[in-house]
Structures are given as structure tokens and as C-alpha cells.
């Protein structure tokens, strides 16, 4: 039907674009494995004959880098699990019930997505300070991981609820009635039947909460001030920027370490992600 020559041209363009888009990532990984004198050379050669782990050794030899990595993972995992569970319940409420203020609530969730969370850094800073000082609850004040976890759960929820709605709605209500006829309890239906059915949607949603939490730079920079043992990865990255000349090999190695987990996660769930987005968009 289509002329093969036109298609060949289109495919060449596509491959060129793919190469251009992948190039920054290639350069990042390449520079992480280059010996330092090659990274800091005027040649900027696109390959290396002497791959080395020196830059990674510098990164992991840096004080507490492993700890920063663990902190980042812990914060992201807690946020993903908590926001997925909370969003699931809320999504069930707004799709399976008719009640007053339902539409109002949905509009609020939509509006909440638009709130520039960066602008909330100032009030959240004081809120976290007071939570720590006044209530004395351990693990939630400034300089604690809780000060990163709590806001990120809140930031992830509106979008997660909005997106999960489509998945919950796609489960036929006849299934629900059949479950009740068979004598299933509400809780049983919710967690044993509905939850597994919308799980792909939860995974797709989780990508977004994982990435936005993992990427967070502003809150980590503003809230973890003195307790460096609670810092996260972005802070560890900035250590390699130095006035007397950046350690580009170290920066690229740390960037690689920070990028790989997200990349793996993303590629694993991309199928669910694409269909999930389709569902969210159709709404």
C-alpha cells in the first residue's frame, strides 16, 4: 500500500532520532566508565579503549553514598506503597458510589494536580518544623526522612486517584454483584477481587509517584539541612561539583547510579504504562 521507499526514509529518520535521543544517556554511561584523563580531555572521543570503575569507586567511596542511595530507595518505596493503597480506596469511592459532593471532589482532585508543589515548600518547611518541635513525634520533623515522605504522598495522590478511576471503572459491576451473591464480604471483594484486577493500573500509577519522589531535589535540599545522614541521592551528586573544577567522571558515575533504577523500573512496566495512559486520557 505504502511505497517502500517512503517507508525506508521514515525508518531512517526514526533510527536517527532514536540515536539522538539515546545519545545523552550513552554519553553519561560512557563517561562514567572512562578513565579520568579521558573524561577531562579536549578530545571528547565517543568511545574508550580503557574502561574502568574508578569513577564508581570514587562515588561509593564518598562518605555515606550507600546510605543516601538507601534513603532515596526507602522514601520512594514508602511513598509508592502508601499512595497506591490510599489512592485505590479513594478511586473506589468516587467510581462505585454516588454521593453528594462527588463531582466537587473530583474537580478538587483535578485542581490539586495543578498546585505548584514547589510553591508549597515554604509553608511545608514550617509545618514540618512544627510537627517535629511541637508534637515531638519522632521521624516527621525537619531533617528526617518523614519530612520527605509525607509531602510526596500528598503530591502523588491527586494524579493517582484520577488515573486509577479509569481502571476501577473498567471492572464490570456485575462482577461485584456476583461476588456478593456468593457471600463475599465488602473487604473481601475490595482486596481479594478488585485489587488484583486493577493492579496493572496501580503499577502504571506507581511509576509517576516513584519518579517524582526519586527525582525530588527541592524538598531534599530545603528540609534536610543539618542531618546529612538523612540526605538523598541528589545531594550526593552535587558534592562532585567543585569550584576548582567539576569531577565530571564522578558526576556521570553518580548520575548513572541514580538513573539506572528508574530506567529498569520504567522499561519493566512500560506496557502497563502506555495502556494506563490511554485509559486516563479517554476519561
Amino acid at each position, binding site marked *: 500500500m505504502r511505497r517502500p521507499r517512503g517507508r525506508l526514509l*521514515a525508518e531512517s529518520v526514526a533510527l536517527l532520532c532514536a540515536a539522538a535521543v539515546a545519545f545523552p544517556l550513552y554519553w553519561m554511561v560512557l563517561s562514567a566508565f572512562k578513565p579520568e584523563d579521558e573524561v577531562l580531555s579536549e578530545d571528547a572521543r565517543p568511545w574508550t579503549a580503557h574502561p574502568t570503575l574508578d569513577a564508581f569507586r570514587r562515588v561509593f567511596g564518598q562518605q555515606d553514598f550507600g546510605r543516601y542511595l538507601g534513603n532515596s530507595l526507602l522514601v520512594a518505596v514508602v511513598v509508592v506503597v502508601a499512595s497506591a493503597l490510599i489512592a485505590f480506596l479513594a478511586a473506589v469511592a*468516587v467510581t462505585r458510589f454516588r454521593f453528594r459532593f462527588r463531582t466537587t471532589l473530583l474537580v478538587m482532585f483535578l*485542581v490539586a494536580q495543578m498546585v505548584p508543589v*514547589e510553591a508549597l515548600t515554604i509553608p511545608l518547611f514550617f509545618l514540618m518544623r512544627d510537627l517535629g518541635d511541637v508534637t515531638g513525634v519522632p521521624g516527621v520533623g525537619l531533617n528526617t526522612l518523614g519530612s520527605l515522605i509525607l509531602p510526596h504522598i500528598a503530591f502523588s495522590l491527586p494524579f493517582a486517584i484520577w488515573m486509577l478511576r479509569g481502571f476501577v471503572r473498567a471492572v464490570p459491576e456485575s462482577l461485584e454483584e456476583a461476588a456478593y451473591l456468593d457471600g463475599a464480604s*465488602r473487604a473481601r471483594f475490595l482486596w481479594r477481587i478488585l485489587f488484583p484486577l486493577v493492579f496493572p493500573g496501580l503499577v502504571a500509577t506507581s511509576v509517576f509517584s516513584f*519518579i517524582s519522589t526519586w*527525582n525530588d531535589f*527541592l524538598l531534599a535540599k530545603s528540609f534536610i539541612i543539618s542531618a546529612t545522614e538523612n540526605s538523598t541521592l541528589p545531594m550526593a551528586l552535587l558534592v562532585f561539583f567543585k569550584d576548582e573544577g567539576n569531577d565530571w567522571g564522578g558526576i556521570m558515575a553518580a548520575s548513572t547510579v541514580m538513573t539506572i533504577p528508574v530506567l529498569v523500573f520504567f522499561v519493566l512496566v512500560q506496557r502497563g504504562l502506555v495502556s494506563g495512559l490511554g485509559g486516563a486520557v479517554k476519561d
Partner: protein
Amino acid sequence: MGGTGGKGGTPWLHLAPALVVLGGLLVYPVYELGLISFLEYTQAQVSGGEPTSFQGLGNYRALFTDARFGQVLLTTVVFAAACVVATLAVGCALAVLLTRIRALPRLALTLAALGAWATPAITGSTVWVFLFDPDFGPVDKALSRLGLSGFDGYAWTYDRYSAFALVLLEIVWCSFPFVMVTVYAGIRAIPGEVLEAAALDGASQWRIWRDVMAPMLRPVLVVVTIQSVIWDFKVFTQIYVMTNGGGIAGQNLTLNVYAYQKAFASSQYGLGSAIGVVMLLILLAVTLGYLRLLRRQGEEI
């Protein structure tokens, strides 16, 4: 919609956790943000050295008479618009391209795009700065080898416009994949016969896009446009990392970075909050416009 409701129980029980979290960590901070923006709130008040005093619209008056704020606001709007247009153009063009190629090149382009999408903003920023580094980056070398000797050792972040261009490239790189994947999914949902009929009539690819695809994709395009506007308007990390906190003498400041500098670098929390409120109001206006668009399309929420 009988559903679960028929079995007793209340939606509010399901909603309770979400409402508690959102109320405490989103609604209340928004209220606080508004409140602080009316106060004189600097280091002296935070440490308790001086009592907080109500300023009325004082912070806002200070903002709107501050020439720099007007400039930063304008810069933010223009920069966000440029990012949105570039992202949509690249994303849509590549989505159409994806429909015209076989599985293998399609997989290559999709994987590359997913990689860019997944890259954290901070590492994307560091990598792009390194690519354009005047001493050790490959881009300046490649450009000068192509005969553009003016780019040999060119420091992109020194000039205001080339610094913005560099940040724009990074933003397009990491945000076009969302547009591409979403629009591609939308095109796949268009019945094949419609596109075939257009192609048989001899319509060019551009006309097929303009007259057939784009009108059918309108809802999808509205969603990706609004998302892009919101993301690009509040860009922080890229500007902060790539231009080192807003560029030389603040030449690359955008609203978000400006608010951060005011609040956390110079401890003028009241002024920083007022900037936040202005941002909030602008994005709220965009959202309401979006809702009206949805309603006009007859979408049920």
C-alpha cells in the same frame, strides 16, 4: 450505579485516608502560603526575635514595583510557551512517524524515548550541561569540526539566551516522550479506514495530520498540552542545576527559582510566598480554562 454502595458502608470511609493526607499536606499548606504572603516574615520573625506583623498587600506591592519580578514573570511565561510548543511539535511529529514504520525501528525509538522520559531531572540536567561543556563536552567539538568554529570552546551558560536554549533542549528531551506515547496511543485508536481513505485520496502527511488526525485527537491533545503547560511553567530543577541557581546575575531566573531564592537564600519568606501565590493563581486560571474546555466537549467527569 448500585455497586458497592448497595452493601452499606459509606464512600467517606474509603475517602478518609486520602482526605486526611490531602487536607493536612496540601490544602493546609496552600492556606498557610496565602497567610504568610500577607505577613512580614523574615529570619527575625522565624527565630522569634521580632513579632510577626500583618502587612496587608505589602509583599504584593513590593513585588509588583520590583522591576526584576516583572521581568522574571515575563521570562517564565515566554520560556514555558517555547518549551510547550517545541515539546508538542517534536512529540506529535514522532508519534505520526511511529505509525509509518515497522516494529523494529519503532521499538528502537520508543525505548530511547522511554530512557529519556525516565531520566531524573537532576541527572538529565547534569548530563546535558556536560554534553555542552566548553572544555570537555562533545557538542562544541562536533560543531567546530563541522566548520562552525565560533562554537569551539563556547560557554553556553554564560549568555542568557544560549543558556535558556540549553535548558529548553533538555526539557524537550525529557518531556516529548510523554506526548509521543500518548498521541501515538490516540492515533492507534483512530479507525484505520479513515486514514487509508485519506491516503488514497492523495492527501499529504501534513494534510492528513491537520484535517483528519488532529481534529479526532483533540481530547488527547488538550490533555498533553495542559500537562505540558503545567510542567514547564513550574520548572525548577533544570534551571537551578544547569544555570547554577538562576544564571549569572540572575539572568535565567524563573518564578519558581526566584521564589526559592527569596525564601531560602535571603530568608524573605513573606515575599517568597507572595510569588508562590501568583504562580498558584496563574496555574489555577489555566486549570479552569481546561475544565471549561472539557465541559464544552461534553465530557462527563
